[in-house]
């Protein structure tokens, strides 16, 4: 049995890495990947919590998050392709037309 505290810390570390990626990366593709990492951090936490409480809900939640992440990636990648076709760039700092 793994120590639940270390699982939580691992999950937290993963989440922070995701946040760091979202904030620091300029490429839209990498931002999307960072968001996936954040989702996985949450999923790990759910599974750990489910096994700790001997309950099936945690794994159920993981399946749910998996589908969510899959659809999110599908939509997100579609948008990114569209965006690249329009402006030939995936730099979020340049894609700030809504500002004006």
């Amino acid at each position, binding site marked *: 049995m793994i120590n639940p505290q270390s699982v939580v810390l691992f999950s937290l570390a993963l989440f922070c890495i995701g946040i760091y990626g979202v*904030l620091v990366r300029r490429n839209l593709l990498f931002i999307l990947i960072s968001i996936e990492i954040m989702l996985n951090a949450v999923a790990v936490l759910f599974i750990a919590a489910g096994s700790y409480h001997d309950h099936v809900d945690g794994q159920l939640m993981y399946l749910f998050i998996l589908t969510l992440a899959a659809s999110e990636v599908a939509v997100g990648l579609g948008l990114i392709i569209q965006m690249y076709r329009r402006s030939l760039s995936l730099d979020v*700092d340049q894609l*700030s037309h809504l500002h004006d």
Partner: protein
Amino acid sequence: MQDHYLANLLMLVVLLPLFSACLLMLSALFSVKLSKTSVTLLAVGCMALAAILVLLVGIEYSDYAGQSFSYRYANWIEIGQLRLSFGFYLDPLSLVMIAIVTGVGFLIHLFSIGFMQQDADFQRFFIYLNLFISAMLTLVLADNLLLLFLGWEGVGLCSYLLIGFWHQQPANILAANKAFIMTRIGDAALAIALLLLFLLLGSLNIQEIQLKAVQLWPLDDNASQYRLDWVSICALLLLAGAIGKSGQFPLHTWLPDAMAGPTPVSALIHAATMVTAGVYLIARFYQLFNLSPLAMLAVASIGAITLILAATAALVQSDLKRILAYSTISQIGYMFLALGAGAYSAAVFHLMTHAFFKALLFLSAGALVYSLGHQQNIFRMGGLAKKTPFICACFLAGCAALSALPFMSGYFSKDFILESLLQQQMYGFWAIAIIGAFITAFYSFRLFFLIFCGDCQLNPDKKLPTSMIIPLALLLLLSVFGGIMPAVLNVLFEGGPALLASVTNDSLALHLLTIATPISAVLLCWLIFRKHSFSERFNSSLTPRFKYLLFMGWGIDRLQEKIFTQPFIRLCQANKNDFIDRLSQLLSHISQYGHRQLQRLQNGKLRWYAASLILSAIVALLSIVLLR
């Protein structure tokens, strides 16, 4: 039904000029072209009718034997204690005034036909003239102060319009503005007096005010005479109003500039209407003024100061109309002096004769200017006696009456003023009046000699039309014979020195003095003229600086500009950015600043948004954890 007849006559007198003005105004408004003949018929015809009606009023009024007649036509304002009506009040004083206003006014109307014939704005001119007369009649006949004030303001407005009649030249507009603003200072004082009297006495009816004032503030012989009590304050405020309108020191500076208007307008302002309003106001409130020795002294002092100031300024002017303007100021000063001495009938008598001879002088000056092609400098004229004998005769009569040569109309009235000054034992004022009479005679004959004697320099190129000759001839007769005392003046005021005081032995010498003064002045003037010592320039005189000071009217204009106008302009410039507005603008400045600061947050950078989202989530979580 007698009353209604008289009341209707009075109303018609006021309404006729107003009717003509309104009709002409409407025709101008709907651009109905009227020929000059029809304008003339309407405007001058209505004035003639009004003058005839005043004659009828006089005949009808003779039944009253000096009793006052008042009639209320309609209610005007009725709020609580305040009851105002459109009512007229007729007594010998207002009868004399409406007779002067309509009579002299009619003659001036008649004269204007010829004078303004070539002017493009013929109709506009007559609208203003009619309105002017109507406003003045309202002022004179009003039985309450507010109606009087209405006429008072109407006169001010019309004078502004008429002085600036030739509005194409900026100088004329400036003169009109000056007249309007200077009289406005007096008007403000009058408005304050009106409110104060209502506050203290609870009435605006002129006769009621005076009755209540006599009851409330009886003249106390024991107390110190010259104290500043309520009645003095009211009287002084009324006096300030009269000063503004009548062109007295220190508000007289608009009157010489008012010459910018057409000459008949100057005649109307100086003789029949406008400047006499102040004298009328004080005479109308004579009971109130009698209660305050302080105010009486102020009236007399202002009269004396103005008298000398204006007479000396008239000595050195070179513009024909300016000389006459200064002489008007100085003659009104005489009237104020008489009012201050309590000799109200003398003042009104002088007002009447002054209206005659000043109208004559102005109209003949107008005729002269008309026939000479708008030349007004008297040093360019000379030797015109043979070329224009009729105008010369008119001028001679006018100057003789103005300088009070014996048996002209001005002699009787001025003599009467001097005599009443002696009766009231005001010897200082009497001496000033005698000196003033000397100067008056001197400058009027300086004017006459320079224009009509000596070498001929100009040729009159126009013949006078009949419509100008008739009023001149009539005024000539009035100036010569107008001094024969009309009996109606005797019953003007109860109390005060009686008219036609008996000539006692000790005053015989003084009478001789008053006769000798103007004659000696005329002789002196003739001697100087023969030696060609009058000069337009300032270097030939012994004291050129003093002469220049006189020429500028003692520099009062410049003084007023230094004291009031320039600091005001400086204040305006200092407050150009509007200090008060800044306070209210502060609010908008703050919100605009906040807006700019908040705007910087919306920079369109996705990663900034994400960061702020995360940061606020952390803060929210921390606060939930820590605050629980």
